[in-house]
């Protein structure tokens, strides 16, 4: 036996994404954001997208380009405070934003990836984030039912990969990537280094390739990936 080869190009992978898709995008700030996949999505111009991402990147970077290009209808996020463009798009009604507590967003995505329907939690009780949410009673306590999140597509940035799609992540570039890489039926990973099967130790794999559909090696790292001078 051998394992299937899932390597492709950035262009071909992104061309599989239809208008109206719900897309999970990895990353927390710069680390782990799949900037090249995002730039290709801007170039191809898919419309009416729903994005699920921890943050809105910063002005002129990452998913801000999709928002500025009018491709985003809805954003599900935890914090967009570093992107003034996104805040003004929200305030002017050009995009709709659903906010979620950060760890609960992570768990909702993970639940989607784990084939669960929902999680039950006390997080947000007593705050406005609890408003309108389904409630369940357990052991005499009222708790919130937070539905699992899945997407049509997940865009992942990984450090190393093999052709089957086994992935590893560098440092804090891990963040939401391994969670999102389980939570969509089409998982596309851009990777900094693609090695042959066997180049990753089975213990080192952070996302098993069985969850991944398309692997595209980056030919270069654009400035987007660099260190931000603050």
């Amino acid at each position, binding site marked *: 036996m051998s394992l299937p080869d899932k390597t492709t190009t950035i262009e071909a992978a992104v061309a599989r994404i239809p208008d109206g898709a719900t897309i999970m995008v990895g990353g927390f700030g710069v680390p782990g954001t799949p900037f090249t996949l995002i730039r290709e999505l801007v170039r191809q111009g898919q419309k009416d997208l729903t994005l699920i991402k921890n943050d809105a990147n910063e002005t002129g970077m990452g998913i801000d380009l999709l928002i500025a290009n009018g491709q985003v209808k809805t954003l599900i996020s935890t914090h967009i405070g570093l992107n003034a463009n996104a805040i003004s798009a929200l305030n002017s009604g050009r995009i709709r934003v659903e906010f979620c507590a950060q760890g609960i967003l992570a768990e909702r995505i993970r639940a989607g990836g784990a084939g669960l329907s929902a999680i039950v939690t006390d997080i947000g009780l007593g705050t406005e984030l609890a408003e309108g949410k389904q409630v369940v009673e357990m052991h005499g306590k009222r708790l919130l039912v937070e539905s699992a999140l899945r997407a049509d597509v997940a865009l992942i940035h990984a450090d190393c990969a093999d052709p089957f799609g086994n992935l590893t992540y560098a440092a804090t570039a891990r963040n939401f990537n391994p969670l999102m890489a389980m939570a969509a039926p089409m998982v596309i990973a851009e990777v900094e280094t693609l090695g042959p099967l066997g180049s990753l130790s089975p213990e080192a794999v952070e996302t098993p390739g*069985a969850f991944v559909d398309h692997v595209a090696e980056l030919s270069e790292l654009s400035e987007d990936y660099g260190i931000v001078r603050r």
Partner: protein
Amino acid sequence: MSDANPLDARARMIARAAREITAGMVVNLGIGLPTKVINHLPANLPVCLHTENGMTGIGATLPYERADRNLIDAGGAYVSPIPGSAYFDSAVSFALVRSGRLDLTMLGAFEVAQNGDLANWKIPGKFSPGAGGAIELAQKARRVVVMTTHTDRHGNPKLLQQCTLPLTAQRRVARIFTDLAVIDVTAHGFELCELATGVTVQEVTEATGAPLIVPDTDIPTF
């Protein structure tokens, strides 16, 4: 043919079931007979075998002398990695099963009903060791097939109108590989697809505890 060598019949069943596995699939082979399918897969078939205790990319089963004490499959057999194998915890392992990443599972059965119900984990009063991962495999793999002898050791049919034992999953079995035949579960019940070499339609019909749809066309053999 009642006088056919039962070992040959079993080997044919396993070899035929192995052809159910095609390029690109992620597959979980249930404990027992289904695991034997590994030995019948073409050497270069691109396929990913999963075991629920936390591994994708299962390679050859290893004898005692060459085993790694930390590397088993869910049935306890010592297995080996292949280039591209991955290890993960039990939560990730079943995430893969439940989220639709398992293209095929091949399971054993005590009983299969003509509507696709499966019973394979409990015989009340006799055998109640717990379901392990069977319920999730049967309920969530994209395609569930069963490999089993057509009748039990007393000659009673295992393919039935209704299951009598506690269910593993409802309406999930798509196809059954037995020592006598390949049978599909259709909206109208069991349908004969293929016959084992030397077995007649009548023999299969008599060994099946539910109506068997027999197509007018030639029935392939395996």
